[in-house]
Structures are given as structure tokens and as C-alpha cells.
């Protein structure tokens, strides 16, 4: 990906971590396979291992093709493959934007404005995200880093103020039904969103060595997810599994002196995080479309993607995005494997073989 603006690799992993934490925050057991509360703790560790394994194509890309994103790598094989991969990634990111927006709408419509139509909020959110996306990766990187600090601060405050409600008696024994439920939950957690696909596209925009930032990001995700789940299940017990948004439900337990309802802090962090994720996704769609079509219409691409997402969400909600939630784990895993593992692996293998063939010819 060619472009002048760059962010540090730490900023990139801050934004990706924030995006990943949004998925943890929006975790909803409603409709999912019911597993015992303590089985979620090992599932986070298993999920971290799976994420690491799914990251192998990313390491290969960074090692053999530094400074190139996955569509640039595809270009070394064939310009047509590059164009096809760009468009397929755009569609994938468009889908993830829809999912993020649908989850935000579900949260806002259920918790924040239960008596009002949330369409106005969604329109404003998409308009703001479109504007942020046109400002570029630098602006998104900076806001993302600050938001991560705010997110962690808000959650720490909530944890401290509800610590007296935490009781380990609420937890179930680990692996009571065997290891399978934890492994299933791990696969679900690892494939919930496609941050590794985001990284495959954004890596050339990040300066610095990836190893430490990646390790810190994965470690931070594991610690944050474990802490969030511990407070949710040790605080709420099995009641958490009956709630649409358990993380928000646990924030409602937070009380300090005469002050109640600190869940507004979490609501703010949630909306901010969703806004940054949607902005990032719109930005990536614009960047990828610039590769396939004209470079000068970058703002138009953002606007078109934003409008498309908005129209689908406002007029066809309940069909496209709900399908993702209702589709079950297998459909989500297939989508994830295709775009995060299979497509990059095929492109990388083809590019490496072509490079080796060229070298053999030259020698």
C-alpha cells in the first residue's frame, strides 16, 4: 500500500487491540451454546494460541515482503489477482462494518435509547466515522491510542467500584463438561472479528519492528479478556448468561458512595470504540478501492461505503447483519479462515514460488 502517512507499529496494535476488545465488550451469550462460566477462562488462553497460529501468514508477509500489504504481494503474482483480492477484502471489510454497526445499534436501541428510534444515532455515527476515515490512518491511530487509554481507565474504575460484589462462589468448576466447551468458545472468540486481516492490509502503514508490539498486543488482549470475564462471571454468576450484554450488566453493579449507574462510563467507551472501528474499516475499504480504481476519489469511496452500510443497516437490518449472529459458529469460522488464513496463504505461497522461479531463471 503506497501512501505518505504512517503510524508507529505500536499505534497500529493499539487500534487493533481496541477493535478486538470491542468484540469482547459486545460478547453476548444469548443464542450461543451455553457453557459453564469458568470454562470461558481457559477459552481465552486457547483463543490466544489460535490467534497466534492464525497469525503465521502475517509473519511470513512481514518477513518476506516488508513494506507490502497483501494486495501488493498479490500484485507480484498477477495484477488481476491483486485487483480480485482487493475487491474481496473490500467486501469482507464491508461485512465487518455492517456487523460492528449492527451490534452498536442493538446496544444503543436496547440499553441507551430503548424508547426512541436509534436510526438518528446510527446516521450520526456513520457520518462521523466517514469524516474520521477521510482524515486518514494518522488521525485514526492517534484517536485509537487515546481511546484505548480511556477504555482501560473506564473499565479499571468500574472494576474497582464493583470489587465488593465479586464472589468466587459464583463460578462453576473448570472443565466440568470436559475441554470441548472451552475449545468451542476459544474458536468462537478467536474468529469473532478479523483484526489479522486488518493487519495484513495496514502493516505497510506502520513503522517499526512488529514482534514486540504484536506480543504486547496479544498479551494485553489475553489479560483484558480474562479480567473482563472474571469480573462478569464472579460478579454476576450465571445471571450473566441470561443478559444480552453481560459486560454492560456487570458495569451496572458498580456503585461508589451515593453515586450509582457507572455503566454510562462503559457506554461511552463502547460507543467511542465502535466509532473508531467503523472509521478504520471505512478507511481500509477506501484504500483498497484506490488500488483497484482511481486514486483521486478516495473521499468518494469512503462516502459510498458509508452510505451503503447506512442504507443496509437502516432499511435492511435484520437480514444481512443478523445473519452473521444467527449463522452459527461454523459459518463465522469459514469466513474467518477464508480471509485471514486461506486467501493470504495462497497469495503468499504463489508470490514466494514466483520469486523463487525468477531467481532460478536469473541464476
Amino acid at each position, binding site marked *: 500500500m503506497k501512501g505518505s502517512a504512517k503510524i508507529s507499529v505500536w499505534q497500529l496494535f493499539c487500534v487493533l487491540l481496541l477493535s478486538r476488545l470491542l468484540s469482547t465488550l459486545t460478547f453476548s451469550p444469548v443464542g450461543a451454546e451455553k457453557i459453564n462460566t469458568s470454562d470461558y477462562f481457559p477459552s481465552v488462553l486457547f483463543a490466544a494460541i489460535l490467534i497466534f497460529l492464525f497469525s503465521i501468514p502475517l509473519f511470513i508477509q512481514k518477513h518476506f515482503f516488508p513494506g507490502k500489504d497483501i494486495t501488493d504481494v498479490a500484485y507480484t503474482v498477477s495484477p488481476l489477482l491483486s485487483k480480485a483480492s482487493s475487491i474481496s477484502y473490500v467486501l469482507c471489510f464491508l461485512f465487518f462494518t455492517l456487523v460492528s454497526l449492527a451490534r452498536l445499534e442493538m446496544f444503543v436501541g*436496547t*440499553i441507551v*435509547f*430503548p*424508547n*426512541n428510534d436509534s436510526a*438518528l*444515532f446510527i446516521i*450520526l455515527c456513520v*457520518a*462521523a466515522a466517514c469524516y474520521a476515515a477521510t482524515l486518514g490512518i494518522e488521525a485514526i491511530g492517534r484517536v485509537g491510542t487515546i481511546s484505548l487509554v480511556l477504555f482501560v481507565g473506564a473499565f479499571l474504575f468500574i472494576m474497582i467500584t464493583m470489587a465488593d460484589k465479586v464472589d468466587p*462462589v*459464583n*463460578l*462453576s*468448576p473448570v472443565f*466440568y463438561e470436559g475441554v470441548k466447551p472451552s475449545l468451542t468458545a476459544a474458536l468462537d472468540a478467536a474468529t469473532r472479528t478479523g483484526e489479522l486481516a486488518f493487519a495484513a492490509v495496514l502493516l505497510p502503514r506502520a513503522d517499526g519492528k512488529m514482534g514486540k508490539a504484536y506480543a504486547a498486543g496479544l498479551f494485553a488482549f489475553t489479560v483484558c479478556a480474562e479480567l473482563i470475564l472474571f469480573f462478569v462471571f464472579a460478579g*454476576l*454468576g*450465571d*445471571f450473566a448468561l*441470561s443478559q444480552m450484554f453481560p459486560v454492560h*450488566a456487570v458495569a*451496572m*453493579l458498580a*456503585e461508589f458512595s451515593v453515586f*450509582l*449507574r457507572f455503566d454510562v462510563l462503559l457506554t461511552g467507551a463502547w460507543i467511542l470504540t465502535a466509532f473508531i472501528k467503523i472509521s478504520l474499516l471505512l478507511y481500509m475499504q477506501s484504500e483498497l478501492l484506490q488500488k483497484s480504481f482511481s486514486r483521486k476519489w478516495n473521499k468518494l469511496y469512503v462516502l459510498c461505503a458509508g452510505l451503503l452500510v447506512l442504507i443496509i443497516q437502516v432499511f435492511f437490518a435484520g437480514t444481512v447483519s443478523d445473519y452473521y449472529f444467527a449463522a452459527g459458529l461454523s459459518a463465522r469460522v469459514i469466513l474467518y479462515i477464508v480471509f485471514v488464513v486461506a486467501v493470504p496463504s495462497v497469495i503468499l505461497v504463489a508470490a514466494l514460488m514466483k520469486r523463487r522461479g525468477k531467481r532460478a531463471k536469473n541464476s
Partner: protein
Amino acid sequence: MQKTVKILLTVLLLSLLLSGCSAPGLELKNRLIVQAIGIDDTQDGVRVTLQTLNTEMAGNPNSGGSLGEVVRCLTVEGSTVSEAISNASKSEGKQPLLSQNRLIVFGRETAEHGLYTHLDYFVRSAEARTTVPIAVSDTTAEELVTANFGENVLSADSITDILDGTRYNINIVSQELYSLMNQLSSDLTDAHIPILRTQKEEDKSSISMFSVGIFRADQMVYELSADEVTALMLLTDQAKSGFFSVENEAYQAQTVLKIKKTDTSIKSEIQNGRILFHVNIKMTVDISESRAEKPFTLDEAYLQQTEELAAQRMEDMVLSAVHRCFLEQNSDPFGFGQRLWQRHPSFFKANVTNWSDTLPDTEVDVQAQVTVERVGNGVENL
């Protein structure tokens, strides 16, 4: 110029978000600010009593009595809780606001019939707090919610203050909605809810903690005595502060002890296929009062005897409560089953199909250790 347009556009867009309360009927003056909700079963459905804040009075505190009491109560009926609450707007012309609700009360009969059908609304509603205290009225919920504590007294406040007494009284238990839901849906721990009694004296009423109701599934089946409530507090590690007394026959004295700190640990063990629980209570107390016919010095022997008597009292109280619940009521409100499930999951899976059937064969031993930390100002009793 472009920057100014952008700023103006942003401000314009943000101003749209200020419309949160502009929808018809959503302004505070058009809302019934609910302070307490009472629920009683009727033949056709449910009767809901709402204690609401008189916003006109609260907004004009200096206007005298012309605007009425600080709270207003209204009773509405419907086939379900949500229908009854929404019916309130028919008689009052205002939409109920539940986010400030401080208390949910069920009538005794309703608690004996079952609570599940009435709780779903509060779990599902985005407005209702999951930490709202739950209580059972010794008579009807309507009587408790409409109790008049005197002019300009928020009775919902007074009731929640009584329930808050759990922090400094070992005979008061409180229960919050989310915790109750956990217990009601548990196969291992029977739920408990405090029972409050209303006493009328001329125009005014007073409310006191009466006992604690224990539920099997969602129906209240029996009640705990005061000592059993203390045992429940000890076994759930909630007895953090409070007073109790011991009789010392050798000194012919009654000693009142103030609990400063309590730590209860429960460990489960499987011995030759039998389930055994070891309860260990460590308590630190101060001597609050020593009442005797003749003055005597609070010497080391007296203090040691007091510690032993207090420890014996705790052990007897817990064993007696466990005996009654396990053997007479076949019920476990203390959470022993949950601990066994946590600590011995494989044994539990292989041997326990119904926890309540296992209770008569379960053994509990209690070890209490009481330490007197301070004796107060008087070295001798007065």
C-alpha cells in the same frame, strides 16, 4: 472558511443528540418517578402498587402542604407486571420511570405461589437496576409500599435503610435482584429474601425486619429464626459487623460483644464416600457491655471464658441452623452444594443427581475461634 463550515456542521449534528427527552411524554414532569414497587397476585393477574415521587412537591419544598405528601401511591392491576405498570399511565396520564426504583416488594401469598412469572419484566427492562433490593411483606406488598412513615418521609428510603442494616446487624439480610435470580435458577442453593413487617400506630406506620423466607425453586416454603439468620450470615461470610451476647454463669454476667471482623471458610471433603464440610469461623470482637449483679475485674480468665462461650455460641447457632435446614427442611440456603460442586466436580458428577436428596447424609463440623481485641474504657464492669 472550509474549517468554519466543518465546525458548524459538527455542532449542528451534535445538537441533534440533545433530543433525548424531547419525545412526547418523556420529560421529567410527565413521568411517574417510581420509588418502590409492590406486587401481589390477584385472581385475574397481578396488582402492582407504585410508590412515586410527587415531583410538584419535591420541586417546591417551601410551598407547604398544599401540594400533598412527598410520595404518592397508586395501585393498578393487569394480567402481567408490565401490563399493570403501563396501566398506571391510564390513571395518572404519566409514563412510569423505573430507573430510580429503590425497592421491589412481594406479598407473602405471592411469594408462596412463586416469583418467576413476576421477575422477568425487571430482568428484561433496560430501565430497571439489577442491584435493586428485593423484600417480602409479611402481609401484602400493597400494605408495605403504602405505609405512611410520617409527613414528607420517603418510605422507600426508610425501607432500604432497614435492609442496609445488614452492614452492622447480624440479624438483617438483604437480597438484590441479580443475586436472587442466581439463587432462584440454581439447583444447589435455595434463595432467601428478607421478610418485613408493617406495624400501624395511629396515623403512622413503622416497619421492621421480621424474618427471612427461604425458597424452593421460586416458592417461599419456610422461614428462618433470628439465630438462623445469623447462621446464614456467617455461612455466607456476610456477618461483618453487629452485636451478640453470651451468658457467663461463673461470673453471673451477661457480656455483649461487638463483632469487628469475621472470616468464614468452608471446605468440603469426601471421606469414604461421605460428604463432609469443615466450617471455620474466625471472629474478632470488642466487649461492648458487661452486665453483672456485682462489680468484678475483667481479668484474663474472664476474657478467656468469654472467648470460649462466644465461640461455642457461634458453633451451636450454625450447627442448629444447618441441622434444621438440612434434616427438617431438606434445603440448603447456605451454598454448601455450590462449594462441593466447585471443589469436587468429578465426585459431584458421579454421585449427586439431586443435591437436596443428599442433604440428610451430609455432615458439617464447625470450628469457631473468637478473639476479644478490646474491652473498652472500663476495666471493671460497672
